[in-house]
C-alpha cells in the first residue's frame, strides 16, 4: 500500500551506517540469512547439477518405471523410468534462468516507464499511467494466457508474456518515488548546473531508487517462477521432456493415485526456491527501506 500514499516525507539523506551496526542488523535479521542460504543452495545445485545429478534428466528406464523412492532412486522414478531426483535438480536451472530473464525485462520496462512518467509528468505521465493501469487491471495470468495464445506455446513465449504483464508494479512505485525525488535540492542543483533531463533521470534520480529496485526484483522473482511454472504446468510453456518443475508436476498429475512422489518433489523445490527469495526480499526491505515495512 505504500506506493499509493502521497509521498509527504522527503527521503532522508542516506546516512552511511557503521560496519559494526550493519553486522548487528544482519544478525538480527535471521529472515534474510535464512533466505540467502536457501537461495545459495538452489544456486549451488544449478551450478553443479551436471556432476550432482545421479542420471541425465531424460534417461528412460522402462523396466524400472514408477519406482517408489528408495536407495538407488532417492526420489523414485516416473512413468518412463526417469529419475525424479535428477529431473528436479536439473529443473533448478530452468527456474533460475527464467526468473532472472523475466525480472530483468520487467525491471527495465517498469523502471524506465516509471522514471519517464514521474519525471516529465503531463501527457507523458497520463499515457504511461493509462497503459500501467490497463496492464494492472487484468489478472496477470489471464493476460499472459492471451499473449501465449497469440505467440504459441513455448517457454520463450511464456517468459515474454509474464514479463509483459508484470512490470506495472515497478512503474507505479518508481513513478511515485521519482515524483518525490525530482524537487529535492540535489536534483535542483543538477538542473541549475545545466544537466540534461536524461542525465538527471539516470544519474541523479535512478541511483536513489536502487534500494527499492533491489527489493522489488527480489520479491518479484519468486512470483515470476510461480507464474512460469504454472503456465508450463498447463502445457503452454516448457514442453516435455524438459525438466521444468511445472512439466514434471503436470506429468505426475496422471499418476497422482499410484505414484504421488512424481508431483510432490518438484512442488517442494518450487516452494523452497520461492520461499528463499521471499525471505531474502523481505529481509532486504527491512534493512534498505524500513518505511516499506508493514
Amino acid at each position, binding site marked *: 500500500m505504500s506506493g499509493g500514499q502521497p509521498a509527504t516525507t522527503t527521503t532522508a539523506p542516506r546516512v552511511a551506517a557503521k560496519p559494526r551496526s550493519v553486522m548487528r542488523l544482519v544478525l538480527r535479521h535471521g529472515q534474510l540469512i535464512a533466505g540467502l542460504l536457501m537461495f545459495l543452495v538452489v544456486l549451488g545445485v544449478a551450478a553443479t547439477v551436471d556432476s550432482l545429478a545421479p542420471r541425465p534428466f531424460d534417461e528412460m528406464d522402462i523396466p524400472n518405471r514408477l519406482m517408489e523412492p528408495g536407495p538407488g532412486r532417492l526420489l523414485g522414478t516416473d512413468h518412463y523410468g526417469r529419475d525424479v531426483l535428477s529431473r528436479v535438480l536439473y529443473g533448478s536451472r530452468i527456474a533460475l534462468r527464467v526468473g532472472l530473464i523475466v525480472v530483468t525485462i520487467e525491471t527495465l520496462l517498469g523502471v524506465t516507464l516509471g522514471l519517464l512518467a514521474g519525471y516529465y509528468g503531463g501527457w507523458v505521465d497520463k499515457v504511461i499511467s*493509462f497503459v500501467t493501469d490497463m496492464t494492472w487491471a487484468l*489478472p496477470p495470468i*489471464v493476460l499472459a494466457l492471451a499473449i501465449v*495464445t*497469440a505467440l504459441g506455446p513455448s517457454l520463450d513465449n511464456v517468459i515474454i508474456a509474464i514479463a509483459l504483464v508484470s512490470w506495472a508494479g515497478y512503474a507505479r512505485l518508481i513513478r511515485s518515488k521519482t515524483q518525490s525525488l525530482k524537487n529535492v535540492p540535489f536534483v535542483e542543483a543538477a538542473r541549475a548546473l545545466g544537466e540534461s533531463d536524461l542525465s538527471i533521470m539516470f544519474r541523479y534520480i535512478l541511483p536513489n531508487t536502487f534500494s527499492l529496485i533491489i527489493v522489488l526484483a527480489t520479491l518479484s522473482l519468486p512470483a515470476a517462477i510461480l507464474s512460469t511454472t*504454472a503456465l508450463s504446468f*498447463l502445457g503452454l510453456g516448457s514442453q516435455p521432456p524438459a525438466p521444468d518443475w511445472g512439466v514434471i508436476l503436470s506429468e505426475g498429475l496422471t499418476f*497422482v493415485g499410484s505414484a504421488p512422489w512424481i508431483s510432490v518433489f518438484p512442488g517442494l523445490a518450487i*516452494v523452497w526456491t520461492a520461499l528463499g527469495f*521471499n525471505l531474502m526480499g523481505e529481509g532486504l526491505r527491512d534493512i534498505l527501506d524500513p518505511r516499506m515495512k508493514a
Partner: protein
Amino acid sequence: MFAYAVRRLGLGLLVVLAVTIVLFGVMQLMPGDPIRLIADPSRIPAHKIEQLREQWGLNRPPHVQYLYWLGNLLRGDFGHSIVSGQRVSVLIMARLPYTLMLALTSLFLHYLIAVPLGLLAAVRANSRLDRCIVLVTTALRTVPAFWLGIILMMTFGVRLGWLPISGFFGLSSIVLPVATLTLPSLGGTVRLTRSEVLETIREPYVLTAYAKGLRERAVTLRHVLRNALIPVTVMFFLSLPWVVGGSVIIENVFAWPGMGRLLWNSITNQDLPVVQGIIVIIAVLTVISNTLGDILSGLLDPRIRIELEEVRA
C-alpha cells in the same frame, strides 16, 4: 463524489475498449489466414474462398473488421466457437456460474480467516503468536496453487477418500478447489489487516476511547477494527479478478467445469472467438469490481472522499 464515480466508470470503459483493441490486434498478428479456420483452401475452389471472404467480411480493412466485431460484442454477440460451432455467449454463460461459485466462496472464506488472524497478529504485535501467523501465511504464499491442489487431492481424495478428486458432483466437490484457491492467498490480507490495525491504534481517537474508560475489547472492535477494515474491504473488490485469474489454473487441476477450463481448452484448440470472449468478460468483470472498490473506499472513508474531491478540483 458522483462526478468521481462517473469518471472512474469512464476510465474503466476506456480500459475495456483498449483490451478489445489489443485482443483484435493480437488476432490480426496471428500467423496464417483466418479463412483456414472456416475452409481448407487446398480443397475448395478459389472463387468459393473469395465468396466466403466476402461473406465473413475478411476482405475489409482491419479497422472496419474491428468495428464490426466491437458492434457485435456490444450486442452480446461474441461469435461462434470454431470447434463446436456453438455460440460463444452460450458457452461462457454455461460456465460462468461455476467459476463465480468457486471465486466468491473462496473470497468470503479468505476474509473470514484472514481478518481475524490479522487482527490477532496486530493486537499481539511482535509476540511469538504474531511472528508465527505472519511466517505461516507468508510461507503459504510461495506454495504454487496447482501443487497444493495436487497434494490436497492426494491426501483427502486418494488416501482418505473423503472428498471427490475432480469434476463437479454436488457440494462436496467444491471443498478441495476452494481450499486450494484460498490458502496461498491469505498472507496478503493478513498483513494488510495487521498493518492497518497497527496504524489505526496510534490514532488520537483511539487514545480518547481508552481515556473514556472503554474496555480493550470495545476499543479494538468498535474503534480500531472498523477503521482498519476500510482498505481491507476495498481490497475485497480489487482482488476479485485475481481470484478469477487464479481459478483458471485450479479449475484445470480439479477438472472444474468453469470458465478457466473452457479458456484453457480453447487455447489448446486455438478456438480464438471463445478465448477472446472469455478475456473480454474477465476484463469487464475486473473493471466493474475495481470501480466498485474505488467508489466504496470513497463512501466508507470521508477522508479519502475529500482527498478525491481535491484531486478533481
